[in-house]
């Protein structure tokens, strides 16, 4: 004897589940956006993250420092000789550099434009762009150290890399100028032509400018400032024969991936 069974009609259940599947996530997102819009909760989040990032950095640097032990002796000797040669070349240039730097500072002092009053604060980089996708850094100094939103961030006292966008008690978020869409005024070439550079991500920038302005590969790009600085070096110039404009592509000399410390230029409002 053949038996027929009614198939269970799941349409209603599916529709109900479908509604739930949208309502719950939407509610969760709205709830968390509201919670993490409060500065206190954001501060708590960064306070939790700070020790974790420090531990991670310690572990990474431990392994990075000890990788050399695994290299062969011949390789280490070769590298050692190469570095010695490099040091001897650099030390000769360093003498001239120090002399010019001293002269520059003396002249500024005579003209009343010395850097006295300009306060730099050293910060350790907790998170770099490799980890953060966005071109942002997280550093271990915050409002308790005098950092405020908008403070400029430098490397080696002469290379601007970004600005502070969010400040918490003991941490701050820095947006790199190379972050896609970020804009910064720069001076290009020997004639110091002022243009707006646009970040392309990964420490790269582009500037659109008329072809009449002579720029060549290797030209230095600086940020308007009283102190001597290097913001980038022209890597490539692109243009079409029919266009009157050219696109100058340049890169910041700082290797963000190897960055350990940054200097925050504190404002002198206090």
């Amino acid at each position, binding site marked *: 004897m053949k038996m027929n069974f009614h198939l269970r009609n799941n349409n209603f259940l599916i529709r109900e589940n479908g509604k739930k599947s949208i309502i719950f*996530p939407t509610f969760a997102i709205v709830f968390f956006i509201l919670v993490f819009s409060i500065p206190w909760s954001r501060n708590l989040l960064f306070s939790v993250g700070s020790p974790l990032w420090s531990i991670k950095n310690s572990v990474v640097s431990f392994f990075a420092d000890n990788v050399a032990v695994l290299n062969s002796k011949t390789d280490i000797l070769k590298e050692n000789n190469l570095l010695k040669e490099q040091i001897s070349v650099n030390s000769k240039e360093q003498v001239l550099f120090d002399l010019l730097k001293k002269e520059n500072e003396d002249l500024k002092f005579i003209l009343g434009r010395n850097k006295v009053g300009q306060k730099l604060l050293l910060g350790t980089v907790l*998170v770099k762009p*490799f*980890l*953060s996708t966005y071109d942002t850094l*997280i550093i271990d100094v915050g409002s308790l150290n005098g950092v405020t939103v908008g403070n400029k961030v430098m490397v080696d006292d002469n290379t601007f890399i970004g600005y502070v966008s969010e400040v918490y008690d003991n941490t701050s978020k820095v*947006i790199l100028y190379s972050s*896609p869409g970020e804009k910064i005024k720069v001076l290009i070439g020997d004639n110091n032509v002022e243009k707006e550079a646009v970040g392309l991500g990964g420490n790269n920038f582009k500037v659109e400018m008329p072809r009449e302005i002579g720029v060549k590969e290797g030209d230095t790009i600086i940020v308007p400032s009283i102190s001597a600085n290097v913001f980038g070096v022209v890597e490539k110039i692109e243009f079409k024969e029919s266009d009157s404009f050219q696109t100058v592509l340049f890169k910041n000399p700082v290797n963000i991936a190897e960055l350990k410390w940054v200097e925050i230029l504190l404002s002198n409002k206090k």
Partner: protein
Amino acid sequence: MIRIFLNIILILSIFILPVYVSVVLIFISVFLFKNFIEAIIFGFLIDTLYGSGTILGIHFAYFFTAIIFIFFLISFKFKKMLRTSFH
């Protein structure tokens, strides 16, 4: 229990591992677990911690939240299709 353990791993991964790795882990978790709503919260955490407010030149602060939310919704349909094909 496994779910709680995975949640802890995912939270730690957001802080310690590169974002790409965390996002892949979140995607896998969405497929492995039913109604893995935590995924959206993790997306939001990534945006809150590392976000610059701009992604690919567009002002949008919640890129990963949006991506994971869309993936979460798609996963419902996909899981249903898989169930249909296996049964």
